[in-house]
């Protein structure tokens, strides 16, 4: 068990290292991208550009630049942005992380609760009209582009229906830290939570429903029923528990991706200064150090959750350990 975990974690570190090289190559080795020129601003003299190149080591060979960047990122931890010269990146990420966490965790709670409810309802009510209806609604949620849904939400909550009782409480787009004003924090996040959750409720309720149906027909459940245990107990103690294994592992993977900055478009559409938006703006400005930092930050979470889920699954299902 420990060996397995150790192996997984070691390969995770290797993957991240390889990723950093990949990102570096993608951006640094592309013609047409000239960081020194970008940093130099409006109409610099050739001397200015040369001075910047020297200062930031941009005239050194690529491997040297890579090592310098990784050193500043991981070891001395004072890597600076190219778009905002002198602005340190790690504090920026530290500021953005709680915003993303607020968005993602809130949405996650919402979608887990709702998808469990819908999934269970659909499975229990299988055969009657509710099942396909619920599943249809779930599917529609899954099929929406999140940026479009967010825009439509903004159209109504900020403009069209803003003056009605329904949405007059909606504050202007933005974010307030929880420590500063919990009520405002909450109000800022409600619509984004719902928007993000709609995307995932569909998928998870379907997964749960399918897992429930499959588990239900298995022997140990039939045995429980035969023993006379109430339907409700059967559901909760036996079927649900088993079905949640798959649910939880998928949830872990998706949560990892979202915390990593995967809610990029949601953050942009709702004006939340999270890691996703930071990444997006860095990509739009070709701010290479920030891109490197945010990709690695994100990859860390993705790889971590992948590994955790693998470990979890291996504990529960010994057959997988062999694969």
């Amino acid at each position: 068990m420990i060996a397995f975990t150790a192996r997984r974690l070691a390969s995770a570190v290797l993957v991240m290292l390889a990723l950093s090289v990949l990102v570096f190559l993608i951006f640094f080795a592309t013609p047409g991208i000239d960081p020194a020129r970008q940093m130099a601003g409006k109409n610099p003299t050739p001397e200015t550009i040369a001075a910047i190149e020297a200062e930031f080591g941009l005239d050194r060979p690529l491997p040297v630049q890579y090592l310098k960047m990784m050193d500043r990122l991981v070891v001395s931890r004072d890597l600076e942005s190219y778009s905002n010269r002198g602005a340190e990146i790690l504090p920026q990420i530290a500021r953005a992380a709680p915003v993303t966490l607020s968005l993602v965790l809130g949405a996650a709670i919402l979608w887990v609760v709702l998808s469990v409810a819908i999934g269970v309802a659909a499975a229990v009510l299988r055969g009657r009209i509710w099942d396909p209806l619920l599943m249809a609604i779930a599917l529609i949620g899954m099929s929406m582009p999140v940026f479009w849904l967010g825009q439509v939400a903004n159209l109504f909550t900020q403009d069209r229906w803003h003056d009605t009782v329904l949405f007059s409480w909606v504050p202007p787009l933005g974010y307030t830290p929880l420590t500063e004003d919990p009520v405002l924090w909450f109000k800022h996040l409600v619509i984004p939570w719902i928007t993000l959750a709609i995307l995932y409720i569909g998928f998870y309720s379907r997964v749960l429903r399918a897992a429930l149906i499959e588990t239900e027909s298995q022997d140990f459940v039939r045995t429980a029923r035969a023993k006379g245990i109430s339907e409700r107990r059967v559901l909760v103690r036996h079927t649900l528990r088993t079905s949640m294994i798959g649910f939880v592992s998928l949830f872990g993977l998706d949560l990892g991706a979202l915390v990593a900055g995967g809610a990029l478009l949601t953050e942009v559409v709702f004006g939340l200064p999270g890691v996703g938006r930071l990444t997006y703006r860095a990509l739009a400005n070709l701010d290479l150090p920030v891109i490197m930092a945010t990709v690695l930050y994100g990859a860390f979470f993705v790889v971590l959750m992948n590994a955790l889920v693998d470990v979890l699954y291996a504990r529960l299902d010994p057959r997988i350990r062999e694969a």
Partner: protein
Amino acid sequence: MSGSPWRLALARLRRNRGAMASAVMLCVIVAASVAAPLYADHVAHTDPFASNVNGTTTVDGREVDVVAPNASGLGSTPIGPTLEGRYFLGADAQGRDVAARMLYGGRSSLQIALIAAVLTALIATVLGIVAGLAGGWIDAIISRFLDLIWAFPVYLLAISLATVLLVQGIELGPITVDASSLWLPAVIIGLIYVPYLARPVRGETLSLRRQEFVEAAIAQGASNPRLVFGELLPNVAPVIIVFLPLIVATNILTESALSYLSIGVQAPNASWGTIVQDGQGLLYTRPWVSIAPGILIVLTVLALNVIGDGVQDALDPRGRIRGRRRTLRRGAVA
């Protein structure tokens, strides 16, 4: 022996009313997109790619500006939905017919989604089978490589590649892809979802390899090509087919996200995503420019998801293929 499971599956699919209805809707959308030039010429009488800022059109018999300037001299407003032949859904800020562009946009979006899916299927099949069959260090390299791509947050990889490749296009030996061609987003989207499919293919190959009839064939000295084409592909095919509608659906969503961010389909080509982007600057005054293509995206993706369900039920009623938790990784952009 290989004929009847397919026929059985098809019959099951046909009985699935949801899937059939979705297939019909999909056909309607595809047909409408294919007929885009006909619509543009004969119904809308416009060139959906030419600016028409100072043009006029007749609505209810009256002549109105397509893009009407405001009395204050500040700003202008494009015409809203006329519900007539010309400018059925109104005009965008360039004075172009939104409905006609939406149909052309469908062509781009559907083309890219399909080409990308085919690319993913081809590459994933090759990689998956080679990894599963060869084993050893070849498998290790391929698997690690797939792990690497998968660890890169998918949307980030797409955005990074798109951002960078848009500057120069692709030039790999004989293969050149121009930055403004539809092939660029298609290739990018095709590449990023390879691990999504390659892993189940590899898994299926591995489990097939262990099965008796395959071991027997190997013992009998069957050559590799015979093995692949005779035994493996027919059994791997259902895996691919089950995933295909889902992949196409995800591709549509990914392409629309990239185009919305202006790093997908490039102007003056149109796709549903670019039209949503066009409508962003008109969201509060002419919301239909953004809402309408979004609705089309939802309908298409929904149809594909239902068909995907149907195909799964038909080919794999016990959920063996999609049931594996590792393979259900969602790759859409949030």
